[in-house]
């Protein structure tokens, strides 16, 4: 891991200087703010849109609706953003020749990769953290207070879920020389995991299996079976980075 600390500094500066971190943070902040708002005002919006001819009866919005809306939005936008962040992380550096600039210096290839993964993870963590903070505050204003620790733990699980897709796209970015191809592989992984989640025997071992424990934690309810999806997702992230390193250490640049 020679040079990891220096390379991580460079990656974080790049996330800031290329506006990836501010833009992703702003998108997630918007998601966090809008989720409780949508949950609270959707019935009234539909009522106003339907007019007097159309009668839509919806149950009274609850805190659980706000949390469901947040988890759904974070997972959808989060996966998209994760794929966008990771797609060019290695492929673009190989294509532009900047990977060669760094790796002819005393920097290990492992450090080069891990610094990138950590920087992507940090950007997503800041973004999910902002979304969670905004959603918690608006839920407090519009509904009722939720447990802070549980909400924070829920945010960690949501972050872990989208990190899985970032790691798969990162692996693809390492294996190919094209950011678009890497994005395609990330999207295919999203679809495949979505299909596999329909099988009850497999679902608890997939990143989507983190949704239920994240919901329970946010609402302060008892959590059932969080360990399997947490461990499986951590293993998926670890395996993706390990395979990326095994491939990258022998690649010509």
């Amino acid at each position, binding site marked *: 891991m020679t040079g990891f600390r220096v390379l991580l500094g460079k990656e974080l500066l790049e996330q800031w200087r290329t506006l990836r971190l501010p833009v992703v943070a702003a998108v997630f902040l918007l998601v966090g703010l809008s989720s409780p708002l949508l949950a609270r005002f959707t019935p009234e919006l539909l009522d106003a849109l339907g007019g007097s001819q159309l009668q839509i009866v919806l149950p009274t919005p609850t805190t659980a609706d706000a949390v469901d809306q947040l988890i759904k939005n974070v997972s959808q936008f989060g996966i998209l953003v994760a794929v966008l962040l990771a797609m060019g992380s290695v492929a673009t550096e190989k294509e*532009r*020749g*900047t990977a060669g*600039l760094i790796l002819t210096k*005393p920097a290990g290839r492992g450090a080069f990769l891990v610094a990138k993964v950590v920087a992507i993870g940090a950007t997503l963590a800041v973004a999910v953290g902002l979304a969670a903070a905004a959603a918690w505050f608006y839920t407090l204003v519009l509904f009722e207070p939720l447990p802070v620790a549980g909400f924070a733990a829920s945010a960690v699980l949501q972050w872990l879920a989208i990190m899985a897709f970032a790691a798969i796209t990162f692996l693809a970015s390492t294996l190919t020389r094209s950011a678009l191809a890497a994005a395609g592989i990330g999207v295919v992984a999203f679809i495949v995991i979505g299909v596999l989640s329909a099988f009850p025997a497999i679902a608890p071992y997939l990143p989507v299996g983190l949704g239920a424990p994240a919901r329970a934690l946010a609402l302060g309810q008892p959590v059932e079976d969080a360990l399997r999806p947490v461990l499986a997702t951590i293993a998926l992230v670890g395996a993706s980075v390990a395979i990326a390193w095994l491939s990258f250490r022998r690649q010509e640049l």
Partner: protein
Amino acid sequence: MTGANEAGGEPAVRARGLTKRFGAVLALDSLDLDVPRGSIFGLLGPNGAGKTTTIRILTGLARASGGSASVAGVDVADDRPEVRRRMGYVDQDPRFYGWMKGRELLELSARLAGIEGPELRSRVAETLKRTGLADAGERRIGAYSGGMRQRLGIAQAVIHEPDLLILDEPVSSLDPEGRRDLLELIEGLRGTATVIVSTHVLADVERICDRVAILDRGRLVTEGPLADLLEAHARPIFELVPAPGAVAMDDLVARLRAASWATGVDVAAGTIRVTVSDAAAAAREILPIVVSCGVVLASFEQARPTLEDVFLELVGPASSDELDGRGFVRPRAAGPS
């Protein structure tokens, strides 16, 4: 820089049977090469000779298909960052992060080499000044011109004072001032660091290099001290400059070409250049031929052979069946591994 010349010691770079295949193409064919410590070493050859491939293997950017290469006694296949800490590399087309400032790139390079604190700041300032980028350090690299990027490439390669500096076509984007500065910088490293320069500018090689290797289609054609190479490979050359208004030039050229000792007669920029196989015979007979043709000369001298003469003699222009459709020499086909 601690890589001073150590006579009889481990060479700065050693290649043994170094081979590189790209599919059916043999880019390097069992290359054996020693680069002595402290030397300024010119790596020459036509396009496709294998110079850049050799450099890419030495820097760890490419893997050899066979044989071995070592830097300071450490096999480059081990991919050890400690080796690269002692090495600086300038690509023929340096690529950088456009969002980064010049100063930040130098800080990154120095930090990766383990330089921190006050020394880091002084090294960065000194290197920016040394490479003519003192006023551009706070500008984003994306706004740099080609020449400035080339200077920055040199700056990032020398900031940690490496024992081995590898430059692949370093003057390609430099203006005359930048080229002069780079040559002076390289000359300043003589005896303290080993420098490998791959270039097509043979005049630069003659000026700064003390040893030269010539590659052709992946093979080492010759290697040795520049002076020995000129002596061993160059044929005596005579230059005749006719006086203004001289007549019967065509007759003179034809008669020189017909001489048994003449191996080549070229006329360029008003100078007749005669390459000979027997210098003594030529020295005796050229002037009588000139006189018999009635040509008046402004000057006549035995020219010192240039590296270009040696290069062309050893590598020579490719025959038409050796050229591909784009005018490049076809690479050698790979034999059975």
